C-alpha cells in the first residue's frame, strides 16, 4: 500500500558523464529521445559548413547548464562569465575567419546571419531559461516559513534586469541577422512591403483579440495567486500541525504540571520565533545535525528510541529543511503509533540528491484509508515533499511495520 507524489519533467541539460567533450550532444539526445550518434553527426555535418557546428557546439556548451552528473566545477559568474563568453566568441570567430581565408566557406549571406541567429538564440534561451528569480530560498533559515516554504519565486531586480538585457540583445542579434540576410540576398525592399502588411494584420488582430487576451492574462494571474495562497495555507497548516497540535496532544496526555509547563514554554518560544521570522534557538545549519536534533527531540517527547544514520551531509537550505520537517513528522508518527518499537532513520545525501527512510516495526496502517482530517501524513509529509519538488512514499503492512521514504532530487541549478 503506497501513497506517493511525483516531481516534474526533466529539462534540457548537458550530460558530461556520457559525452565526448561537454556532453551537449548527449544532453540533447537524452532530452528529445533520439540517438546520440545522430545528434553528433548533425554537428559534424554543420561543421563542414564553415565551422558552424563547432560554433553551435561551443555555444551549447556555454549556454546549456550541466546535468546533475557533472563535476562540481562551475562556470564563473559576473565579470568572469562575460570574459569567458567574449573569449569563446572571439575564438569561434577566429575559427570561422580561418575557414573563410582558406576557402572552406559556404556563403557570407548564409553563414554570418546564421552565426548571429545562433548567438541571439542562445542569449534569448539563456534569458528565458535562467531564473529571473532567486534560486528558491537557497541557504535560507527555517524561520520565515510563511514566505520561504512556498513555491512562490522571490524576484531579484538585478537578476531580472540581466535576464531582460540578455533577451533584448538576443532579439536584436536575431533581427539584425534577418536584416543582414535580406540585405545580402537583395530581398530587403520586397521584405519591407511584406513587413508593412504583417504589421497591419497584427494591429487589426490585436484590436480584435486584445480584450480576450487581457482577460486570459488576468485569469492566469488570479489562478497563480490563488495557487500560491493555497500553498501558503498548506504550509502554515503543516507547521501548526507539527508544532502546536503535537504539543497540545502531549499536554493532554501528561499528568506532570512541570512537564506541561516546560512543553508550553518551549512551544511558545518556537512559535514566537516562527512568527517573527527568526530561526529557532540552537537550530542546526547542516542536514545531519538537524536530523539528529529532530530525532533527539522526538525521543525526548515520546520516550521511544530513535536511531539515526546519516551518510553524506549538506547545508540546510529551505528544501532540505522541508525534508527534515517531513522526517520529524514521520518519526513522530512512528513514535506515537509504532507500538513502542524503536524508530530507525537512514538519510543519504549525494550529489545534491537526498533520500531519507524512516522505519518502525509497529502494527502498520493503510495509507489509503487515512481519514481526511488527519493532516500528518497527507500534508506534513506527502504534501510538504511535493511542494518542495520531492516525493514521499509510504509503505505499510501489519507484518513489517511502516516505512516512509522521502526523496528530494538535485536542483538543476545547483
Amino acid at each position, binding site marked *: 500500500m503506497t501513497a506517493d507524489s511525483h516531481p516534474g519533467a526533466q529539462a534540457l541539460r548537458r550530460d558530461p558523464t556520457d559525452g565526448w567533450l561537454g556532453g551537449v550532444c548527449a544532453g540533447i539526445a537524452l532530452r528529445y529521445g533520439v540517438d546520440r550518434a545522430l545528434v553528433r553527426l548533425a554537428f559534424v555535418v554543420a561543421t563542414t559548413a564553415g565551422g558552424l557546428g563547432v560554433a553551435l557546439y561551443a555555444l551549447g556548451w556555454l549556454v546549456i547548464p550541466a546535468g546533475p552528473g557533472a563535476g562540481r566545477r562551475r562556470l*564563473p559568474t559576473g565579470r568572469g562569465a562575460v570574459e569567458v563568453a567574449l573569449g569563446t566568441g572571439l575564438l569561434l570567430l577566429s575559427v570561422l575567419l580561418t575557414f573563410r581565408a582558406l576557402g572552406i566557406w559556404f556563403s557570407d549571406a548564409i553563414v554570418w546571419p546564421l552565426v548571429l541567429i545562433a548567438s541571439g538564440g542562445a542569449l534569448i534561451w539563456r534569458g528565458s531559461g535562467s531564473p529571473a528569480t532567486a534560486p528558491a530560498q537557497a541557504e535560507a533559515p527555517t524561520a520565515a516559513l510563511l514566505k520561504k516554504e512556498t513555491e512562490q519565486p522571490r524576484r531579484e531586480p538585478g537578476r531580472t534586469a540581466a535576464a531582460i538585457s540578455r533577451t533584448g540583445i538576443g532579439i536584436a542579434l536575431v533581427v539584425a541577422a534577418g536584416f543582414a540576410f535580406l540585405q545580402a540576398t537583395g530581398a530587403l525592399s520586397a521584405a519591407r512591403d511584406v513587413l508593412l502588411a504583417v504589421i497591419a494584420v497584427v494591429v487589426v488582430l490585436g484590436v480584435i483579440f486584445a480584450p480576450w487576451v487581457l482577460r486570459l492574462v488576468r485569469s492566469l494571474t488570479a489562478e497563480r495567486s490563488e495557487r500560491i495562497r493555497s500553498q501558503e495555507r498548506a504550509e502554515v497548516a503543516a507547521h501548526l500541525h507539527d508544532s502546536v497540535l503535537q504539543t497540545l496532544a502531549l499536554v493532554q496526555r501528561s499528568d506532570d504540571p512541570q512537564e506541561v509547563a516546560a512543553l508550553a514554554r518551549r512551544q511558545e518560544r518556537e512559535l514566537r520565533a516562527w512568527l517573527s521570522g527568526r530561526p529557532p534557538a540552537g537550530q542546526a545549519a547542516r542536514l545531519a545535525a538537524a536530523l539528529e536534533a529532530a530525532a533527539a527531540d522526538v525521543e525526548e517527547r515520546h520516550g521511544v528510541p530513535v536511531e539515526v544514520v546519516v551518510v553524506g551531509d549538506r547545508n540546510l537550505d529551505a528544501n532540505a529543511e522541508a525534508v527534515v520537517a517531513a522526517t520529524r513528522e514521520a518519526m513522530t508518527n512512528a513514535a506515537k503509533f509504532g507500538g513502542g518499537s524503536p524508530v530507525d532513520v537512514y538519510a543519504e545525501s549525494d550529489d545534491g540528491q537526498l533520500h531519507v527512510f524512516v522505519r518502525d516495526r509497529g502494527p502498520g496502517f493503510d495509507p489509503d484509508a487515512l481519514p481526511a482530517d488527519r493532516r500528518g501524513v497527507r500534508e506534513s509529509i506527502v504534501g510538504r515533499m511535493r511542494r518542495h519538488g520531492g516525493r514521499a512514499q509510504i509503505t505499510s503492512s501489519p507484518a513489517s511495520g511502516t516505512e516512509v521514504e522521502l526523496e528530494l532530487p538535485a536542483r538543476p541549478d545547483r
Partner: protein
Amino acid sequence: MRAAKPDIPALVAGLALLALGGLLLAHSLGVVELSFALVAPVACAATGAILLANGLGRGG
C-alpha cells in the same frame, strides 16, 4: 620548497603576445606576407584566449 603556481592568464597573454610578435617579425623579415585575412583570425584567437583564460581563472 614548492614551486610557485603559474599565473595561467598571464602565461596565456604572454604566449599570445609572443606569437603575435613572432608573426610581425616574420612579416618584417619578408618570411610571410601579412594581410587582413590572416591577421584578423590570429588577433581574434589571441584576444579570445586571453579573455577565456582570464575569465576561467576567476573561478566559479
